[in-house]
């Protein structure tokens, strides 16, 4: 870079070196709150644009004949199908069945997982003794239990809830336990020196320390609950989105399958967003980069 002597060009003014384009998300050194909101709308816009781009790509692929229509449906057809299906009511009945099962499984599985995780976190001897069995159970594909649950519970909501619970429990258990074990040893030493009772140590220190991990677990748990329920429905079920997929597969209604997959994706995203919003308010105390 040549050094220009300022007297040679008296009209030259300093120009900021890196003018960032409007779409850049890296807002420089703004306070946490304003950075978040100004980044917010730009981020959403980008996300929507990516979505539109993908849909456009899909439509182009179909129109140009690159992909055979018998394998993949077009966005247009999928949209029409969804519209019809929702008008008839088929979509809503099955959507409701899946959602109810998902939420029940989520609540049951999370509650059980969190309690077990807390217990194992504070009772190290029990933890050590039981650990190999937990690892073994966790490594086993729970989907294999699907047919077993059907035998026990029959074709109904119980079987799919059981399957989903078996997945969610482990996620919450492991996350909760990890959260408790991640307590800062300095803080634990402080607890000791302050003369805290075991219960005080649990309530005032271990529980708050575990909260971020528990929330991460809840976020995963909700999505996996949905997956578990749908998987159960795929195996055998009267109602639910998974049952619809099975039916449409049997009659080769490709459009239908794609439509349901799309609905599932949208639900999963919405559930995730709800969890994130809840998490954000409860974890205000964390430095922004950690969220």
């Amino acid at each position: 870079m040549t050094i220009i002597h300022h007297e040679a060009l008296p009209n030259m003014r300093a120009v900021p070196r890196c003018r960032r384009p409007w779409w850049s998300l890296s807002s420089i050194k703004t306070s946490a709150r304003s950075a978040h909101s100004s980044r917010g709308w730009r981020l959403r816009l980008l996300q929507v644009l990516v979505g539109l781009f993908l849909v456009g790509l899909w439509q182009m692929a179909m129109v140009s004949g690159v992909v055979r229509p018998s394998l993949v449906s077009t966005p247009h057809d999928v949209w029409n199908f969804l519209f019809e299906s929702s008008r008839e009511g088929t979509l809503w009945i099955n959507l409701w069945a899946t959602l109810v099962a998902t939420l029940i499984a989520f609540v049951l599985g999370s509650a059980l997982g969190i309690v077990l995780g807390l217990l194992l976190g504070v009772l190290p001897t029990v933890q050590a003794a039981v650990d190999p069995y937990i690892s073994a159970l966790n490594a086993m594909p729970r989907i294999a239990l699907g047919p077993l649950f059907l035998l026990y519970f029959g074709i109904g909501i119980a079987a799919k809830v059981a399957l989903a619970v078996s997945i969610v429990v482990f996620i919450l258990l492991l996350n909760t336990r990890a959260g408790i074990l991640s307590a800062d040893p300095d803080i634990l030493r402080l607890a000791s020196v302050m003369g805290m009772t075991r219960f005080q140590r649990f309530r005032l220190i271990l529980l708050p320390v575990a909260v971020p991990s528990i929330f991460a677990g809840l976020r995963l748990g909700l999505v996996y609950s949905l997956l578990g329920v749908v998987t159960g429905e795929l195996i055998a079920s009267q109602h639910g989105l998974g049952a619809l997929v099975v039916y449409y597969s049997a009659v080769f209604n490709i459009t239908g399958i794609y439509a349901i997959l799309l609905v599932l994706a949208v639900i999963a995203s919405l559930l995730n967003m709800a969890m994130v919003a809840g998490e954000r308010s409860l974890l205000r105390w964390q430095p922004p980069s950690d969220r």
Partner: protein
Amino acid sequence: MELKPVAAIRNVSVNFATPQGTSKPVLRDVTLSAAPGELLVVIGRSGCGKTTVLNLFAGLVLPSSGEVEVLGSSPAQARTRLSYMFARDALLPWRTAARNVDLALQVRGIARTVRRKHASEMLALVGLKQYESYYIWQLSQGMRQRVALARTWVGSPELLLLDEPFAALDAQTRLSIHAVFLELWARDRRTVIFVTHDLHEAIVLADRIVVMGDGRILDDISVRFPRPRETTKLMEDKTYIQLVRRLHDLIEVGS
């Protein structure tokens, strides 16, 4: 008339097990006591055993031989009557500054309104009145140490143990926090045992300096500069310079 010491260790030796399985002596037959209202500073190089001395008083370490007495009973029983400030602030990140300070009182079961009042007062005393509802990540290192200091003093402990609490601060911040600390101490002159490796810090704070090296006490020096003391003024005093040199030589040679 000799006053009964607030805290004392007598003929204490402490050995720690090494990873190799042998035993390493950390303190060798040490006898040390702190008189009521005394600001005792223990100074020495890293590894000389000064933190272990504090840990003995706090009950975090048991002596391999000898006895430890704190406030007339064993360290475990005296725990709720003393306060310990670590080098790393050990503040709870999920609590605001004010709630961190009132943790010490909450553990003792003191009612919420009383707690909040004391915590507010304490934070005002250390100059952090507007920062009561800030979270820890929003505070600078110096501010965090002041919050930790407030937490240490709240609840009127009878004995304060501080382990290099200002080591992580820059020189300027350290000077201002010394002033804050001495102000707090001057209010009711509680017994303090303060560990540091910084000679100047030791002299400006101490009534009495105990120099340690290699697990032993090397010297026990009374510091008689009048209070209030200011490091910048003290530095011009000849006795100050002599004392600094003496301490420096002791630490240098003794380890």
